[in-house]
């Protein structure tokens, strides 16, 4: 009994000391790796490896994980948000634009911030928000009606709120912003509305806009010649996932979305820069340092909105600052992140829209006859689901859709401001006339499309060869992000609602929790009071595990 009281006292004291209001400085963001008890950016650090140095949970004890707490979401719809954790406090967004401050140890909520969107807000694919960024004592969130909001980390009240894009024209902010130095960086979604995409930087203290780089170059700007006529005006190029940052090169790396109209390339002759590209942007000035386009003149909606994973590799004997990228178009790429040079490319799923990549990484197109299936289908070989890279195994871990195709059609699209600007569509292919294809999200508990329409998989890709080291197959597809730890665990999930710990070296399943709801975010790990926790969102619940006490 006495001992129990002593333990309680100790816990109270730790809880108090842990809660001391330490400012999140830029220096802390730079060295996120040095504080593995925290998860202070969307991808766990600027290199976006989603790799944690915590070691308490191991392949040997992972089966002793137990439920610690659940935070239910009162709002229905895919919960794609990824929490951040700072000094025992978790900050998570929920639809449409709420922020919750949650005690990371108990799941109890300190405050809830609610943002009321303008009725003008329009989003193609649900009222998604993927999370917040932090600097000092402020949190930053983009909103569905195109605003960027700063929130007091202690009181949960807004400090400033600036319009970034016009919601009437389809601009919306769904990505978690990235803080670099004293700036908040964000890009705009709206690729289905004929927007002209951009990334922009705002003064973290005041919200003043400091620069804006258009992902679709205007007249007189380099790259505008890749757009026939006035097609650049409605060229799309949305941004809806968080960029990565290399402090040594002082470059941010952004995945750019599809061109508009999505499926009719005839209306936008040319390569359509910088859609379906990665762009390297100087965060101080907003100037473009280099770009690499994955899918020129894309007719398939192959957004390149994947997270740029930054890894330092020994590339054929030369230490190389590399960027690893498994693209929605079905190819895996290794680029030199200093200059965008193509180093390697290989398909990781069945691909028939291109026969391969040329020496510069440009695809060799093989368009399929009308009415015939194209692999991968419209949701891609992968999509925005966060990959993980383990410097220990040297492998990139991605969530992929195998054996998944669509039949694409194109039609003339007329641009009407604020309305869908699509130019056709893609119907998931099943091989059986009238059978349901894979839907964008899980709507019923029955997998009516089955693996005849495609299956999910976690793949471990060796960046040195582009080959798969192992594949962990799932029956249904997966929209889950991935997380690795320094004990060679890989946490992942899928639409079936199973949450897995795999052996990162072999892909062998070590532990599973059947949570029921689709997992459409990236799991994270953190520690409070010296205890490692793992959090994941399944359906409408944020669920946190730790080892049995």
């Amino acid at each position, binding site marked *: 009994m006495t001992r*129990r*009281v002593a333990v*309680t*006292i100790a*816990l*109270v*004291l730790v*809880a*108090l000391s842990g*809660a*001391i*209001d330490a400012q999140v400085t830029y220096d802390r963001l730079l060295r996120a790796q040095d504080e593995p008890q925290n998860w202070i950016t969307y991808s766990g650090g600027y290199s976006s490896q989603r790799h944690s140095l915590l070691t308490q949970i191991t392949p040997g004890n992972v089966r002793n994980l137990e439920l610690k707490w659940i935070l239910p979401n*009162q*709002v*229905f719809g895919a919960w794609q948000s990824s929490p951040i954790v700072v000094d*025992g*406090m978790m900050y998570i967004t929920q639809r*449409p634009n709420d922020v919750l*401050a949650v*005690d990371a*140890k*108990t799941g*109890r*909520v*300190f*405050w809830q911030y609610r*943002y*009321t969107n*303008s*009725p003008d807000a329009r989003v193609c694919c649900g009222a998604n928000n993927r999370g917040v960024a932090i600097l000092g004592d402020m949190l930053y969130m983009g909103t569905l009606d195109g605003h960027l*909001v700063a929130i*007091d980390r*202690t*009181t*949960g*009240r*807004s*400090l*400033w*709120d*600036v*319009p970034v894009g016009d919601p009437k024209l389809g601009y919306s902010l769904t990505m978690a912003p990235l803080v670099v130095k004293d700036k908040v960086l964000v890009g705009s979604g709206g690729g289905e509305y004929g927007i002209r995409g951009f990334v922009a930087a705002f003064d973290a203290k*005041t*919200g*003043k806009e400091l620069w804006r780089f258009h992902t679709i170059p205007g007249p007189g700007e380099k790259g505008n010649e890749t757009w026939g006529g006035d097609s650049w005006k409605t060229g799309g190029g949305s941004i809806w996932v968080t960029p990565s940052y290399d402090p040594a090169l002082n470059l941010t790396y952004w995945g750019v979305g599809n061109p508009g109209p999505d499926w009719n390339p005839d209306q936008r002759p040319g390569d359509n820069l910088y859609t379906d590209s990665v762009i390297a942007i100087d965060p101080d000035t907003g100037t473009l340092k280099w770009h690499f386009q994955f899918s020129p003149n894309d007719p398939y909606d192959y957004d390149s909105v994947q997270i740029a994973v930054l890894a330092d590799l020994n590339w054929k004997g030369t230490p190389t600052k590399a960027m690893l990228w498994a693209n929605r178009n079905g190819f895996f790429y290794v680029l030199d992140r200093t200059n965008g040079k193509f180093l390697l490319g290989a398909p990781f799923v069945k691909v028939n829209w291109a026969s391969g990549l040329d020496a510069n990484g440009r695809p060799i197109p093989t368009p399929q006859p009308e009415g015939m299936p194209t692999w991968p289908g419209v949701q891609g070989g992968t999509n925005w689901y966060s990959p993980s890279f383990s410097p220990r195994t040297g492998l990139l871990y991605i969530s992929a859709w195998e054996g998944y195709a669509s039949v694409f059609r194109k039609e003339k699209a007329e641009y009407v401001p604020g309305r869908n600007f699509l130019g056709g569509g893609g119907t998931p292919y099943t091989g059986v006339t009238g059978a349901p294809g894979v839907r964008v999200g899980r709507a019923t508990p029955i997998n009516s499309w089955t693996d005849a329409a495609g299956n999910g998989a976690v793949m471990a890709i060796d960046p040195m060869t582009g080959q798969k080291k192992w594949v962990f197959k799932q029956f249904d597809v997966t929209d889950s992000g991935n997380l690795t730890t320094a004990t060679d665990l890989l946490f992942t999930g899928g639409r079936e609602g199973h949450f897995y710990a795999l052996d990162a070296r072999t892909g062998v399943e070590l532990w599973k929790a059947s949570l029921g709801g689709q997992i459409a975010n990236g799991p994270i790990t953190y520690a409070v009071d010296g205890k490692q926790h793992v959090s994941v969102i399944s359906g409408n619940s944020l669920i946190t595990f730790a080892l049995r006490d």
Partner: protein
Amino acid sequence: MLLRATLLVSFGLIASAAPAGAQLLTVDHPGQYTQEDIARGSLLYNAQCFACHGRDGDQISGVDLRRGQFRRAQSDEDLAQTITRGTPGGMPPFKLDPAELTGIVAFIRAGFDTSASVKVGSAARGKSLFDGKGECATCHRVAGRGPRKAPDLSDIGLARAPAMLERSVRDPSSALQPINRPVRIVTADGTTIRGRRLNEDTHTVQIIDDRERLLSIPKKGLRSFDVITESAMPAYAGKLSDDEIADIVAFLLTLRRQ
């Protein structure tokens, strides 16, 4: 310059929120709805709407009637139409006569405030009192300025109706929301923690302490845990004149940062 930017942003917010946002009777629509309509609407609301929308009008996801947050409606006509036609797969249609409909709309637009007696003065004078003589700013935070000890008032004009604001100023303890009550905690080792309650469950309590720290405290093993029903804020009835209180209420009503 910073202040100016802040003000501009605030104004922008008010302007952009106006079409869909809360339109408190006393601020934006003087005399638009009669007290009689509001009272009729209040009765009708309790009989017809309460079951789903709840006492405060915020029980339906994405809808907060009292604060003027709707899924579709913007104008009074939109509101009336939603009430009479219902929504697909959601709210059923209600058969109401025109006077009843006017009453419901008036009640919603008045922020559920049926009192007619609240005096609203000058917001500019209220701001001076807030920062000066009233010493409100020594405890309350507004738009990122001021301490976090007392509740942040940046959006209080959206969150509270005028009558409630007036009561909070005159006699804070009578208007103190139970969740906001001050707490005094003595831990097993004798450390005393004072703060304001933010949340609580069977096992833990979440507070902001007097050093502005967010703390989640396990209840087990605490030497004492007291929740105090008296507000830490002084009562201003008698300290300030009725006109001065009316000015402060006016200023608080302008605090509508989302």
